[in-house]
């Protein structure tokens, strides 16, 4: 469970008191130690942890998509999950048409990028300057619209999508499915690529500058509007990765399969602090593992899984109102 930001320097720059940061790192370190010891103690625990991390990576990727958009425009994109769902259907369709899984995967990422960018240009940009709330409502409208369109094209029934991974291998006596290792690898790989783009390229620097201070970025010659559109494109790509990797863990493809994931991605993003990309990924992993262990060891509370997860989240928020890695806003109360 590594974070993406260079640990303390990044946090300090965000103006977090070092004391708070240390508490957070102690907490995360404690969690990691707990997981490690548990994995060594019990194979069942280890398996639950691995599959939890894999699913959590998908939540994290979707959460990262939400954070990218939130950082740039303060819009919470409710349509992110449905967009991921729709692009997964596109991958499914491409495979039906004869592409191999990974060809379809790559093509879908490209399509997702175009789709995300186009949505920003056509429906988000015109309202965003005038009202953030209106932009959020537009994304709610997109949620419903995309849902309807997918149902219209593919129907509401269950589909089976070919899984890219099969079989399992043995790691120190623990049987690990390729599926989970693959999910974890692909999602985190993509997340790392996006991180590298932001961290090491001129384009990435421009996107960060545009998100931080649009007016100053424009004065430096950054085409801020384009950066925001690209941000939506990248977010859609991350969502598509999350969708395509999450789908095999759900076994079935239905128009609603990303809705639960979106809820957990929200939780992950909030847990991480909404403005912290690394925090979103860590948050996703944490929530994935937490829920998986909960379901594995306390099956009697399964129907309360969501409320329970949110109760924990709310408790964390009450202690740290801006999430684990969030900037502390000026306290007003």
């Amino acid at each position, binding site marked *: 469970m590594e974070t993406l930001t260079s640990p303390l320097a990044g946090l300090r720059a965000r103006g977090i008191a070092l004391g708070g940061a240390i508490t957070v790192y102690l907490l995360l370190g404690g969690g990691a130690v707990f997981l490690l010891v548990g994995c060594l103690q019990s194979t069942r625990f280890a398996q639950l942890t691995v599959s939890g991390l894999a699913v959590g990576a998908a939540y994290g990727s979707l959460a990262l998509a939400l954070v990218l958009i*939130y950082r740039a425009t*303060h819009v*919470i994109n*409710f349509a992110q999950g449905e967009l991921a769902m729709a692009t997964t259907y596109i991958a499914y369709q491409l495979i039906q048409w004869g592409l191999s899984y990974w060809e379809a995967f790559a093509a879908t990422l490209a399509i997702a990028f175009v789709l995300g960018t186009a949505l920003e240009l056509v*429906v988000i940009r*015109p*309202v965003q300057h*005038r*009202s953030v*709330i*209106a*932009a959020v*409502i*537009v994304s*709610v*409208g*997109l*949620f*419903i*619209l*995309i*849902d*309807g*369109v997918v*149902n*219209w094209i593919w129907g*509401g029934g269950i589909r089976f999508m070919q899984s890219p991974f099969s079989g399992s291998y043995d790691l120190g006596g623990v049987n690990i499915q390729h599926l989970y290792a693959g999910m974890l690898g692909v999602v985190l790989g993509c997340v790392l690529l996006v991180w590298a783009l932001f961290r090491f390229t001129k384009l990435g620097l421009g996107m960060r500058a545009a998100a931080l201070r649009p007016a100053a970025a424009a004065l430096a010659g950054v085409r801020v509007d384009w950066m925001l559109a690209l941000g939506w494109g990248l977010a859609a790509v991350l969502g598509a990765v999350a969708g395509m990797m999450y789908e095999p863990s759900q076994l079935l493809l239905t128009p609603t399969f990303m*809705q639960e994931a979106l*809820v957990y991605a*929200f*939780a992950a*993003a*909030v847990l991480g602090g*909404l403005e912290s990309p690394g925090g979103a990924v860590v948050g996703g992993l944490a929530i994935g593992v937490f829920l998986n262990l909960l379901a594995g060891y306390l099956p009697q*509370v399964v*129907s*309360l899984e*969501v*409320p329970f997860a*949110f*109760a924990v*989240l*709310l408790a964390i*928020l*009450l202690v740290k*109102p*801006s*999430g684990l890695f969030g900037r502390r*806003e000026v306290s*007003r*109360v």
Partner: protein
Amino acid sequence: MRGRLPALGSIAAVAVLIAVLPFTLSSYNVSLVAQVGIFFVAVLGLNILTGYSGQISIGHGAFMAIGGYTSAVMSRDHHTNLIVTMLMAFAICFVLGLLVGLPALRLSGAYLALATFALAISVPQLPLQWSTFLGGTGGVQSHTTVSDRWIYGAAWSCSAILFLLAWLILRGRVGRAFRAVRDSEIAATASGIELSLYKTLAFGISAAYAGVAGVLFVMATNGFAQPTEFGIILSLQILIGAAVAGLGSLWGILAGAAFVGLLPQVSTSVPVIGSDHGRDVVFGLMVVLVMLALPDGFAGLLARLRALVRA
């Protein structure tokens, strides 16, 4: 809803229209217009919270669920009169709203939105856990059921009473305090308004409104309260209604309520696409288009028109 009652003329016009409609419409259409009345109550409640105290909630469906279940369970177990259950729902949701409002004090903006979102997701799960009392997936059937006309009358009477109540609240000291809180929290604290008191109060009032809407909502589904009816979509519908309504205008709230109350039903019959999906495609598209055209909602449009007329 600002300082004075909106032109009495327009209120009278609405009242007459509402009173005459049931005699001219088919039973199905009466139930549709009743639906609008139910959303009117919920949107009005959210309008008080968002518009007058600057807090946002994506979780008002949860309060509708609580109100609806209160009514259904009381009716099932004690055959309680529906008017009484409505008052109970109002009271219970008011208290719960205050309780939710308290932690909400520590959260702002997007965090509050997501916390209330969590509420909307979580509450409909509760009946599944306590299924003997709350009926599980099967839901709770009220003892009494009522006719479409009855619901129509109830929904619009509630609308009228609660609108008047909102006006009375917002007109006076409390309303001024709400607006002060919204416009500048720091200034409000400085001017001695007890910020937390009023923020919490706004949450309570608006939750109570949603509770009443929930009771009506359950009555409109033949007295049957079911978890799936209170999903996240319901919360989003109320939010959309409030956004389409805009701020503090009777006509705006009517438009917002009509938008979410009528459009999905009406567009179910769009021929090309087919029932359910057609509804989602049309409704989703309309939400996007309306927000593109009217980022400040219907109230914003009215304000602009009024400015045009005056100029």
